[in-house]
């Protein structure tokens, strides 16, 4: 078996291991290592695995560094697991601006696949003792310690492990995982990394530790960041004003996750559980946008995950339903009412293309004084201030002698006889039909009544 193993030191000290993890030296109160010296080292590479940060990482194993993990090496005391344990303990002073700490680990084990689910399953733990939180921070979401039985033990393809000693069917691993642990600013906490055999001392396991840093993220319990997927949002659309509360569904969410919409961070993102976040959608122009969820150390994008639309887009155009009266005097001067829908104050009215002053009454009515117009049909167009319009062909009919009986015309003739340009009676207006220019204002009405009665008598006698 080819084991690609690049070491910068051999039997590293606790301080070396701490430094390789990028733990700030100034924050280390104390660093100790317990276990056989052959079980740890600082590496720059293990097969295809390289540091997540800097040039090296800490390495601890239940066997001997550089030896094949299968069948592995049973370190003294032989036949028992007690000798196959490596523990790095760091006592750390939490900076004043930190609310949590983070580190990456990659667990590898040769127990896979033969001993999955048995008593031989080696484990990795990260025990924390602090005022913010105490316990084993290296557990999957089901509360399992890190072993071949953990849900996080997901790297089993040989080509993903080339040169690590765990390839070619020997074993598998977790992949790099980021762990976030709560911390109180100013606290002195203890972080204890251990890897150990269970039940026996063979079939070794290893852990890579790297990329320690302090974080401002406020969390209440430890989080292991694994794969992150965003599957869908519900609701998946809303108004451009934002403010919608939408659920983001997926996998691998934790308290550090935030959602953003086309690069604009959600007003708030609330962690519900590993598969759901609740986000308050920020404002955005109408568009179909991508949704990104970012958790510490990982992010995932859902293309076209959310739609903004403008509920107020567009307006209703005016509609002309009726015009009263329909027949108009060519001389103009009549009050006309237009009845319809969605009339907006400030509208303009055109009669056969000519602007006519109109009075807006409400959304369904307006009035105007008819202008003079040649006999015939006339179109009415109403244009709302937003430019939307309705055009009604033949909306009114200009007509001489528009009604029967022509009472209004008779009144006009009585009080203000219209002689017209040619001196004749008003053209087409009812004056008895004779066209003889009788001075009707002179002749008493009773006379006309009498004449009409005689006419009827004459007709009946025929």
């Amino acid at each position, binding site marked *: 078996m080819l084991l690609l193993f690049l070491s910068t030191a051999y039997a590293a000290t606790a301080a070396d291991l701490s430094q390789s993890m990028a733990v700030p030296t100034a924050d280390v109160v104390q660093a100790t290592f317990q276990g056989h010296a052959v079980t740890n080292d600082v590496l720059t590479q293990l097969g295809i695995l390289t540091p997540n940060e800097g040039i090296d990482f800490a390495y601890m194993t239940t066997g001997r560094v550089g030896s094949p993990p299968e069948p592995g090496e049973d370190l003294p005391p032989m036949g028992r697991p007690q000798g196959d344990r490596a523990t790095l303990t760091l006592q750390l002073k939490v900076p004043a601006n930190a609310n949590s700490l983070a580190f990456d680990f990659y667990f590898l084990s040769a127990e896979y696949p033969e001993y999955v689910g048995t008593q031989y399953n080696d484990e990795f733990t990260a025990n924390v003792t602090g005022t913010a939180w105490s316990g084993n921070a290296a557990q999957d979401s089901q509360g399992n310690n890190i072993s071949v039985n953990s849900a996080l033990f997901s790297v089993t393809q040989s080509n993903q492990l080339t040169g690590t000693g765990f390839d070619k069917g020997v074993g598998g691993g977790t992949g790099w995982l980021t762990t976030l642990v709560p911390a109180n600013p100013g606290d002195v906490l203890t972080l204890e990394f251990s890897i150990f055999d269970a039940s026996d001392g063979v079939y070794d396991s290893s852990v890579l530790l790297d990329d320690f840093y302090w974080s401002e993220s406020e969390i209440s319990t430890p989080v292991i960041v694994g794969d992150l997927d965003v599957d869908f949002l519900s609701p998946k659309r809303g108004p451009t004003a934002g403010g919608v509360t939408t659920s983001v569904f997926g996998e691998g969410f934790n308290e550090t996750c935030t959602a953003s919409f086309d690069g604009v961070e959600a007003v708030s993102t609330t962690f519900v559980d590993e598969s759901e976040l609740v986000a308050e959608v920020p404002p955005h122009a109408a568009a179909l946008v991508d949704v990104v969820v970012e958790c510490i150390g990982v992010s995932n994008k859902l*293309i076209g995950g959310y739609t903004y639309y403008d509920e107020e887009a567009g307006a209703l155009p005016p509609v002309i339903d009726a015009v009263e009266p329909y027949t108009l005097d060519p001389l103009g001067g009549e009050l006309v009412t237009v009845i319809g829908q969605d009339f907006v104050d400030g509208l303009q009215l055109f009669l056969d293309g000519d602007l006519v002053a109109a009075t807006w009454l409400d959304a369904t009515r307006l009035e105007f004084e008819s202008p003079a117009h040649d*006999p015939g049909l006339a179109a009415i167009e109403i244009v709302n201030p937003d430019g939307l319009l309705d055009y009604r062909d033949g909306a009114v009919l200009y007509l001489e002698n528009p009604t029967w009986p*022509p009472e209004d015309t008779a009144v006009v003739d009585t009080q203000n006889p219209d002689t017209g340009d040619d001196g004749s009676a008003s053209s087409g207006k009812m004056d008895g039909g*004779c066209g003889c220019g009788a001075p009707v204002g002179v*002749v008493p009405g009773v006379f006309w009544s009498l*004449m009409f009665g005689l006419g009827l008598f004459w007709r009946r006698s025929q």
Partner: protein
Amino acid sequence: MRASVCCVLLVACSDYELNPQDPVGSDPIEELVLAEPVAVTGPSVRMKRGEETVLDSSMSFDPDDEEPVFEYVWWVENEPQDAVYTLSEVESAAALFSAESLGVFEVGLLVIDEDGLESTNPALTSIEILPYEQMELRLTWDIPDVDLDLHLVRPNGSYYSETDDCYFGNPLPDWGVLGDRRDDPFLETDSEDGNSPETIRLQVPEEGVYEVFVHYFDSRDATQIYATPSLEIRAEGQVLSLDVGPKLYGPGKVWKAGVLDWSTLTWTPSTVLTTHSDLGGPPVNQ
């Protein structure tokens, strides 16, 4: 029926007596001038294609006859090019008009009184034939917790186009007159789990051939993912069609549900299955 004529005759006589300056010996009968009748029709009409309207002549009158009896002549004065229409009862008081072509028609009226005089005034009814209205599509499916999406593509448009396709990503596109909501489709409800219909409404559709697609968008966390869609097409408030589509076997599948010819209200269903990518759809939901 000649009462008013008689009255005119008498008035003429009295007029003669009251105006001695009039030429002596003129014959009052010869002075009688019979007035032309006045044809009145309207007001203007707006109606859908295929509807029938009764054209009204009841406001027509004869200045020299209080109770006139007319003969009527109706004709189409103006019409859109190549228009298809029907004008019947053209010699009655109430003609009937209907048209299969959109546009503005003008129907003229002439009345002839008992004296044989014809109206000479303009008398036209403007009739505007409008497209059908109230397009509504309702999509439902048979299993819960999966997300199918309804797409309405306007005439000559393309699937998933930002301007042509009304769907969840473009729920209120501006079609027709810019800024006019009445001719814009709206994805009124975006059902995400099949528990309620997914609905698109369009109040005043332009005429043409629309395409309708059903896209299997997401199976979400459903354990049973094979979904069978049902699509109801409504026009003018009436159900035009109700189709059950083919079974969709998972995300990315698309049912080309059919084409809707809005000028004839003809729905041509289809059972063709395709995929989102084959239709040129962009990456979504991934």
